[in-house]
């Protein structure tokens, strides 16, 4: 039971929907410790992605779809999250190549490459109060689930849950990267908007997998 292009495009559509739905929340989080444009920027980016998604050829691979997301976010987001997430999707696309069907190992490779892309671009480390604080726990949890022999749905579920915990865990941190780093201790008590949006995107991946997976009897839980 692997995940193919249907899962990938469903993940992307759900990402766009969840970003749109949480637009105001992300703006509020960013206004508290940044410049307030994160929700708007990301919504603009994913709206542009949706507009291009139908142009994907019928035989497109998951990697093709991820690359489309990458180039569109890089071109349209306008804030730091454009190059950061754009590089994440670009490296993720590279990691899965032209594989049509992604198994657990491929998903772990996809998530790891995405995280490494964010690190490469933003040079943040764990605990800097950035989106890395969602991505790295997600990668670690996915790797552990895969090593444990769990299926693709469970791997993505583990990643999403860990990302959500990681995003919540940014609240007590002082930021060491990005606009929030100018605030020093005033950033304490606020959740990092980038970690929050990344956890939303990873949750969308898990929901899409549960929905597109016929072999998962207890989808959703």
């Amino acid at each position, binding site marked *: 039971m692997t995940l193919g292009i249907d899962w990938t495009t469903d993940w992307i559509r759900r990402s766009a929907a969840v970003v749109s739905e949480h637009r105001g929340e992300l703006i509020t989080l960013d206004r508290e410790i940044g410049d307030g444009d994160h929700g708007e920027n990301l919504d603009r980016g994913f709206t542009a992605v949706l507009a291009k998604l139908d142009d994907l050829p019928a035989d497109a691979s998951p990697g093709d779809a991820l690359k489309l997301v990458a180039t569109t976010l890089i071109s349209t987001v*306008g804030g730091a999250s454009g190059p950061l997430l754009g590089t994440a999707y670009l490296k993720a696309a590279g990691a899965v190549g032209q594989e049509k069907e992604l198994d657990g190992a491929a998903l772990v490779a996809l998530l790891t490459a995405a995280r490494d892309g964010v690190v490469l671009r933003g040079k943040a480390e764990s605990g800097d109060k950035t989106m890395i604080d969602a991505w790295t726990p997600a990668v670690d949890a996915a790797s552990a689930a895969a090593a444990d022999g769990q299926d693709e749905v469970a791997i993505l579920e583990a990643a999403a849950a860990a990302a959500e915990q990681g995003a919540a865990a940014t609240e007590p941190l002082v930021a060491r990267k990005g606009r929030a780093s100018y605030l020093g201790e005033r950033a304490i008590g606020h959740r990092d908007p980038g970690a929050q949006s990344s956890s939303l995107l990873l949750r969308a991946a898990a929901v899409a997998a549960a929905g597109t997976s016929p072999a998962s009897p207890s989808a959703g839980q």
Partner: protein
Amino acid sequence: MSGTPGKVGVVFVSHSSKIAEGLVELAAQMAQGTTLVAAGGTDDGGIGTSFDKAGQAIAEADSGEGVAVLCDLGSAILTAETALDFLDDDVRDRVRIVDAPLVEGGVAAAVAAESGAPLAEVVAAGRSAASGGDETTSVDDPAAAPAAGAPATGAAASGDRQVGYSRTVTIVNRDGLHARPAAEFVKLAGTFDVKATVNGKDAKSLLGIMALGLTKGASVEVASADPAGREAVDALADLIETGFGEA
């Protein structure tokens, strides 16, 4: 390929189109013959940075001699770095993101580019803005600034000044060594291979010279520790004495 043949181009990436365009305007006063390109704001004119604008600006500024890219806050650097990732390898090899304050570094880089300096020197000139005018290229050059008490390098040290040749002149133009004359001075200094100094500062460093804050009436020592530096010192001292064509 476009840009100005034989010269390094300079690109300004800013969150604001007004800042980027204003910088082109400012730097162009001292670098009329250099391709300076603004990449400010998002594609729809808002506040933010544009990957497409950054990539296009680099292409527009590139004559084959290279491009120095100066950026403002956070995502401008990320956007510029991402634009570099998408360039062909041979183009990327001659594009540098300069870690320097946008205004001071951008003007210094533009003036260096105007003088026909190679990419490494343009980048060093830009970076010098971050260190108060001490260009990194001069650090490893023992002739640049003879330390007090150190033996003069090759020069016949006479008296307490350890330089090969020097002239002391007085600033005569009304506003002193402000940006435009300082840029002219640096450009002239750049035409000589030898190292010369102005009151101890590298004569090729725009920011170093501007940081001296030389006003009308100030006494200036132009010097070179290099035995072959006489011609350069005379030319630079003459330029100061003629008042840069200003009243």
